[in-house]
């Protein structure tokens, strides 16, 4: 593209270097991002992508190096500077004010005068114009907190566009979206590119890079390790570059050999504190030796289902049978007694339910089993046994660093998760409840954890896997149940499932056929 080469790049980073204490977050990073392009930056967690973008957006200051915006050296010391230079950012966790309307959220920081009235009128006009131009599909007067996640993300994009951002950075934008919402986002990004905007897409999902970007930078260990034109690379090469070695995106596993029914759930119903039905007559069975995947957009009852099955909360109606033992709402069991039945639980939110971040690894590796005779004396804990137990788990599950007395918070996300997986799998459970096992976990650890799940399946354990990552469900599950609005809206054998079918089922409880017909 000769035209692009004559114009200065929208963003040029030269030799950016940044350290946090002993962590070298960015090493001599140089990038050149062409105007009117979509550029992807991929890398594992901790590869330095987010740090780099925070430097570009003025959250951090680089220790050394230079940033050029549209060919001119720029000093970006605050978000304010970035905005002034036309750089907008859509954060991974939205920074929106829930009780505000879209209009108020968009206006914040660009109110157009000390009084709101006039600014509101002109902002509304501008929003309507942007709406026509980009087709974002949002109503300016809607309260942000009531919107679905996909719409909230579009509000973030709107915020940036409203401020005249010609350069848009999106940090892991698709983690919370349905496949359909993701498609819509990509359409918007392509419209932006067509109108001359520059888009930087940070992600660890290679499929998205392949689907939408023009160029891609691969980061590893804080440094740029490769720069490719997307058309001239493929997901396999990028994955290899990301982790620095060959990884299998597929998991090798033999066919499932389902045995007896280990977990049976019948008509399980749960209402939340406001009386809203979160679980609506959920029924299914899981056999030993199979992995049952539960797919669904987050917030459709999967979390609550796991909590009920793990004994964290009691259902309002229905029954659960674990290996012949019946649990009803009139006789609920707490998590400790569920564990006694051989039900292990790897919770979705490891910081809230999985471990205590301020505890040492030895203590986190013990949670839930602290009353075992092996570890608990009459009064005091048996520290020797506890420490040996933790050290053994760390060895077996490759938890790094191997420091049993390190605070749990000091481990990376992947290693925290491995510690929890180790703890729960150590007892050879009959039923394994797994929620988002690889959320925020790097590729190496994902592979390891997936292999563990398959091994336990083959050992005869019934595995119930809840994940919002379709890739993960498709890679692991032998049968897939889809949840929407607290109900199981469909069941597909792995061999019949593809993302389109699952996506349509996830998005619509009733009329999956209707959508399929109209699409």
């Amino acid at each position, binding site marked *: 593209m000769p035209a692009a080469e004559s114009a200065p790049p929208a963003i040029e980073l030269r030799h950016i270097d940044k350290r946090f204490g002993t962590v070298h977050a960015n090493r001599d990073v140089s990038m050149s991002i062409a105007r009117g392009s979509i550029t992807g930056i991929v890398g594992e967690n901790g590869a330095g992508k*987010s740090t780099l973008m*925070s430097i570009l*957006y003025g*959250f*951090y200051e680089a220790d050394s190096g230079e940033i050029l915006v549209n060919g001119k050296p720029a000093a970006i010391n*605050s*978000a*304010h*500077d*970035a*905005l*002034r230079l036309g750089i907008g*950012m859509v*954060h991974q966790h939205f*920074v*929106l*004010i*829930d*009780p*505000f309307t879209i209009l*108020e*959220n968009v*206006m*914040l*920081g*660009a*109110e157009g*005068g*000390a*009084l*709101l*009235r006039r*600014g509101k009128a002109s902002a509304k006009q501008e929003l309507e114009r942007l709406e026509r131009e980009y087709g974002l599909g949002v109503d300016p007067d809607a309260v942000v907190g009531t919107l679905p996640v996909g719409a909230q993300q579009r509000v973030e994009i709107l*915020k940036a566009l409203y401020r005249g951002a010609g350069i848009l950075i999106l940090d892991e934008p698709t983690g919370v979206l349905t496949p359909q919402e993701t498609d819509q986002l990509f359409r918007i990004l392509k419209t932006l590119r067509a109108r001359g905007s520059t888009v930087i897409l940070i992600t660890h999902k290679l499929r998205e890079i392949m689907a939408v970007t023009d160029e891609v930078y691969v980061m590893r260990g804080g440094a740029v390790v490769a720069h490719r034109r997307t058309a001239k690379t493929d997901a396999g090469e990028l994955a290899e570059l990301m982790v620095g070695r060959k990884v299998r995106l597929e998991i090798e596993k033999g066919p499932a050999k389902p045995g007896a029914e280990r977990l049976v759930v019948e008509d399980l119903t749960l209402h939340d504190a406001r009386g809203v039905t979160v679980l609506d007559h959920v029924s299914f069975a899981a056999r030993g030796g199979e992995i049952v995947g539960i797919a669904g957009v987050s917030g459709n009852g999967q979390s609550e289902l796991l909590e009920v099955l793990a004994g964290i909360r009691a259902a309002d109606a229905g029954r659960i049978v674990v290996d012949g033992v019946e649990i009803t709402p009139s006789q609920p069991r707490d998590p400790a007694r569920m564990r006694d039945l051989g039900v292990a639980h790897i919770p979705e939110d490891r910081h809230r339910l999985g471990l205590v971040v301020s505890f040492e690894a030895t203590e986190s590796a013990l949670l839930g089993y602290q009353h075992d005779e092996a570890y608990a004396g009459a009064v005091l804990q048996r520290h020797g046994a506890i420490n040996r137990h933790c050290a053994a788990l760390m060895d077996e599950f490759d938890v790094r660093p191997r420091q049993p007395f390190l605070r749990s918070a000091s481990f990376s996300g992947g290693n925290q998760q491995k510690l929890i997986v180790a703890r729960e799998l150590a007892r050879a459970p009959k039923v394994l409840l797994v929620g988002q096992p690889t959320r925020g976990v790097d590729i190496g650890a994902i592979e390891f954890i997936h292999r563990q799940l398959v091994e336990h399946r083959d050992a005869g354990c019934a595995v119930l896997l809840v994940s919002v990552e379709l890739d993960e469900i498709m890679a692991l599950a032998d049968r897939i149940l889809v949840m929407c609005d607290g109900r199981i809206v469909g069941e597909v054998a792995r061999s019949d499932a593809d993302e389109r079918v699952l996506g349509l089922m996830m998005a619509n409880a009733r009329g999956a056929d209707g959508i399929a017909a109209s699409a």
Partner: protein
Amino acid sequence: MEDAYLVALLTLSATIRVSTPLILGAMAGLFSERSGIVDVGLEGKMLAAAFAAAAASAVTHVAVIGLAAGIATSVMMALIHGYASITQRGNQVVSGVAINILVAGLTVVLGIAWFHQGGETPPLPPEGRFMPIALPFQDTVAAVPVLGPIYARLIGGHNLLVYVALATVPLTHWIVNATRFGLRLRAVGENPQAVDTAGISVAWLRYRAVILCGVLTGVAGTYLSIAQNANFIRNMSAGQGFIALAALIFGKWRAWPAFGACLLFGFLDAVAIRLQGVSVPGIGEVPVQFIQALPYALTVILLAGFIGKAVAPRASGIPYVKEH
């Protein structure tokens, strides 16, 4: 009948006078808390202002100088709270409690050292105080039946600071809802990161909110010592800062409902004063202590039972640490 009407009017008039410091305190707290800075130090700031106003006025015999001293002192206290909780990211409740304790002791110590009257300040002459303002034609209109007394006793007959307090309510409502500052104030109390990423300084915004809070508690304290009373008495704020805070929560951090709550608490207080020594049929004379405790007891009951779910500004009490 005539008598009952007059009693009712006088009780309502007393309600307004008693509510004044509550209203000022609640509006002060509203600015601070909507910005995400919890302020349990309203009480201390009011007390400090009361002492400063009375002391300055005792020396100069000029009420306005008293007011200026009251506001300046209270703003200083607010800045200490701001420095601790915004710049140093300390615990806001601890900082507020510290201010309350500091002021409770310091006013007495300085009072004894400067005025040698056991911690009180000398009684002030009228020119050193805010005295009731005569409304135009007050005496003529007062003679008109029914409406006359309303004009003279309910609308009129108050000092300047009462009207200032009443004016702060619509003003606060307007600032919070119709101005750029108000939008940002609400935003920073809900999600400071959103404010930061919009290129607005979180700290400066919160400091302004805290200073506004100081100004209003300054007026409240000044009212206590040199308008409602004629000198400073130790611990004269007597929990009114906390009642104002309760009214603010009761009003769910909104100006008009908080104002309503202040009037309710003020009314209970005014009734309590009027009931003292009155013999209630069937019960006999109600003990003074019981009546005095009534507003507090009712506050607890109202707060516990009738407030519904009060959702505080989401970022309230959490120091803002930049992250990404």
